[in-house]
């Protein structure tokens, strides 16, 4: 048992430490988090979660580590027919299996989301090595066409701002190399639906043990790093839209791209 003086000293130290903690300027962490990037998982039909459960959290973690953008390390999950679907400007929709047709309520929810300017990433977790769409990839395109019948996907090449919102990227990459570009439905100048046939989530998924859950082919770690960079760029695109298209950046980035080219 400790002597009384030692206990008093310890008590005093704890009290002082507590007071210092109480008096120290408190960070506005909680109220800053509300506007943080949230890779919200979209659930439709009989889906129960994302194809790679740890991918959204890892995405948020990588964003916070690499950039100044705050992110939710525990991303939320929302159903398309839930009124909360319009609670934030981003949705992450992934899978590898076929999808049941969206219900009327789900279509209405997603239409409200897009009408407010939201962005959705449809990530094909079952994409083939060369980007061949899985049943999810085909079903996602089919169902989005029902939600946004006036929009047709176009290919976003390396010159699109999404490839330079934070990192300078030359192509899209994920768990599989897949196609060089991303497909997107652009409305009002904003890519509101982005289709990834590279399984971006597959490259991001990392278990509690710290091990990557999926091998990345054919590029290995380099390709995984590129996939993470693409995920960061997509998050930055959601938060900053076409910021890097501003005139003040254009000339600078053009010079840097020229310097980086062989």
């Amino acid at each position: 048992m400790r002597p009384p003086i030692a206990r008093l000293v310890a008590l005093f130290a704890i009290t002082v430490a507590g007071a210092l903690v109480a008096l120290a300027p408190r960070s506005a962490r909680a109220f800053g988090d509300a506007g943080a990037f949230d890779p919200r998982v979209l659930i439709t039909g009989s889906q129960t979660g994302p194809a790679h459960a740890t991918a959204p959290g890892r995405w948020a973690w990588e964003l916070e580590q690499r950039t100044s953008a705050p992110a939710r390390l525990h991303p939320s999950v929302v159903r398309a027919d839930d009124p909360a679907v319009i609670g934030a400007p981003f949705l992450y929709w992934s899978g590898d299996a076929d999808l049941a047709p969206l219900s009327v309520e789900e279509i209405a929810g997603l239409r409200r989301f897009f009408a407010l300017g939201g962005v959705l990433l449809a990530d094909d977790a079952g994409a083939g090595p060369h980007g061949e769409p899985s049943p999810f990839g085909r079903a996602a395109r089919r169902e989005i066409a029902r939600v946004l019948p006036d929009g047709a996907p176009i290919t976003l090449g390396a010159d699109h701002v999404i490839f330079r919102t934070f990192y300078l990227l030359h192509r899209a990459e994920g768990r599989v190399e897949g196609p060089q570009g991303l497909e997107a439905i652009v409305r009002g100048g904003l890519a509101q639906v982005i289709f990834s046939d590279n399984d971006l989530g597959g490259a991001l998924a990392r278990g509690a043990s710290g091990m990557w859950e999926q091998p990345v082919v054919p590029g290995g770690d380099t390709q995984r790093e590129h996939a993470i960079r693409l995920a960061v760029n997509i998050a930055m695109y959601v938060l900053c839209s076409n910021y890097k298209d501003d005139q003040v950046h254009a000339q600078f980035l053009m010079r840097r791209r020229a310097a980086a080219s062989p």
Partner: protein
Amino acid sequence: MLSTHLGTSADLPSWGVAVAVALAVASLALLVAEVRREGRGAVGVAVTGLLAVAALLAAVLRPARVAARETAVGARVVVLADTSRSMALPGDDGRPRSETRDAIIARLAKRGAEPDGARFVVLGFGEGAPAPLPEHGSHDDASARAAHSDLGAALRAIAASAEEHPAAVIVVSDGRLDDPPEDVSAAALHAMGASLHVPIDTVATTRSAPPDASIRRVSAAGAAVAHVPLPLRVDVGCAGGLACDELTVTARELRDDGPPALLASGIAHLEDGKGTLDLTITLERAGSRIVEIAIAPQQGDAVPANDRRLVTFEVARERVRVLHVAGRPTNDVRALRQWLKSDASVDVVAFFILRTPTNDVHASTNDLALIPFPVDELFRDRLPSFDAVVLQDFDAQPYGLEKYLDDLRRYVLGGGGLVMVGGQKSFVAGGYAGTPLADVLPVQLGDSSDAPSADTSPFVPDWTPAGHAAPLLAPLRAAVGDELPEMPGANVLGDVRRGGVALWSHPSRRTRSGAKMPVLAIGDEGDGRTIALGVDGTWELQFSDLGSRTAGRGHGALWSGLLGWLMRDPRFEPAQLDVVGGCTAGLPSTLRARLPPDIGAAASSTVRLEITRIDGQRAPLRLEAARPHDAEPIDLPLPPLETGAYSARLSAADGSTTRHDFACEAGGDEWADTRPDPKRLEALAAATGGAFATAAEVASLRLPKPTTVSAERHVTPVAPPWVWTLSAAALLGIHWIARRRNGLS
């Protein structure tokens, strides 16, 4: 008293009398010719013929005795006296021209006092319809105050008047008129008098110009737009024997945040007493801006007041240039950027901090699309080129902004707009407490060492009464009503500073004074405006249940009002101010305030007016007036002000403030050219059939004759009609007999 004279029968028209007399004269002429040809017995034929013609004429005219009571009424003559400010300038003898004008009028009045003299109606002309000439006192009295000399408007008003039409019009002026202008054609001058159908006589008060160098005219090529070069043409002149071959002209903006700023200068070369200089100025700030155009003083100048003109430019914005600086990308930053970029009238330059020193990017610099934050370039070199600066969730310390906070404060005082938007790095947490920037924010910032910088409890902001009434939040109320989304927390802000107004407040948190903590506050500082928004959740006006129900319009409506108010968009001003008829130095004037109905409905409140001279050389003048219950304008009488630029600030009881800048000049346009123009008066008289006279020759003017008016009239025939007829028949018979005896047919 009755007067009697002979006349013709009353039933004969005057043309009938003329025909009868003409026929009689013709008959006599024939008779004379006939008698000369025949020669014989001429006397008898001539006498009887003469008598017969006379009897016939009398039978037609039937003479009568007319007894009448008659008076002569003088013709109505309208004297139009020039009452413009140029009449206060020195005349030929050095005394004000208005004194000569009044002497001329007195001489005309003396002629009116003569028997059967003209009835003079003396009216003053200046602006619009003429009015009775005010009593003459000193040289700056009411008879020489009009800001214009519009003779054309006065003549049109007389022609259109239902009063007795004048028999003549006499214009007394120095000839320096707005209408007719200097180079008017004779045809246009003739047209001026055509509607009156009477000649216009003119009398020149002055013939010689005083020794004077002046700015005669300042004209701008197009409207003034902020940041856009504006060409000015400055016409200068020298007259009255003052020798000046060249004059130095300067253009300076009068500012209340420091000494006048030199915009341009140049030298005007004069030929024949006239010169023109083209200057280009650039006004960086929108709103009312007062520019002083001045020439270097000349020795011997009798009218130094016109060496300097104060020109008010209503500077518009082609596009609002906004600098948007964000400390980190968030949903709130996203929403604001998208709104700024969606508005075609906004030119946004954005810088977002995307990477902090603690971030590990796992890449080389060449793999990054990041550029250094150009804090020096933005806040040292480019700051004046922006209309507004938005600091959103931005920490001043790590990025070198601290050293420019005083520049930012001066930028606000000089007319710039500033918005600080809440977040983890804003207000106290951003290190702004105790800095120069804190002095221009509308709220006090506490000391971060003993107070939390944020309250993380979710809450729904309360509307304050001022927020309910504020026109800048009207678009938001129209979009979402009184409902606001729940905010995830707030920056801890202090009391609203003097001149600030809280529009939203925290429902439970209090400031040190016990007042509800402001969440959204606005304030006027110097020439600029600032907004403090202590939350980072306005994006939820877009992405929330409320946003879904209102199609997300609330976010754009909020920022449209905030930015519009910051830029003094009249739609969002709590009041509209105007100096009625302009301000003349040394004369009282009236400032009219129009309050919108929703604010004017506030009962039993007052508005306070503060007039300050922009150079701060005089103590502010303060007035108070009761605010009407409805939207009726309030007229606030201003005492005589000295020459200079002034700023009027009207504050309502809720603290909302409206500013209006105006200039007071001694003579204005009327003193710009002090030369009299008697030739223009001479040309006007010649074109309308009138006469021109100088002041000394006024007695020679021919006035219209009086009109005779009969009050009572009695007509009595000299003889009955049958007597005249019988006499004529008899005398004609005798004449016929005389002709037959002399062998005539």
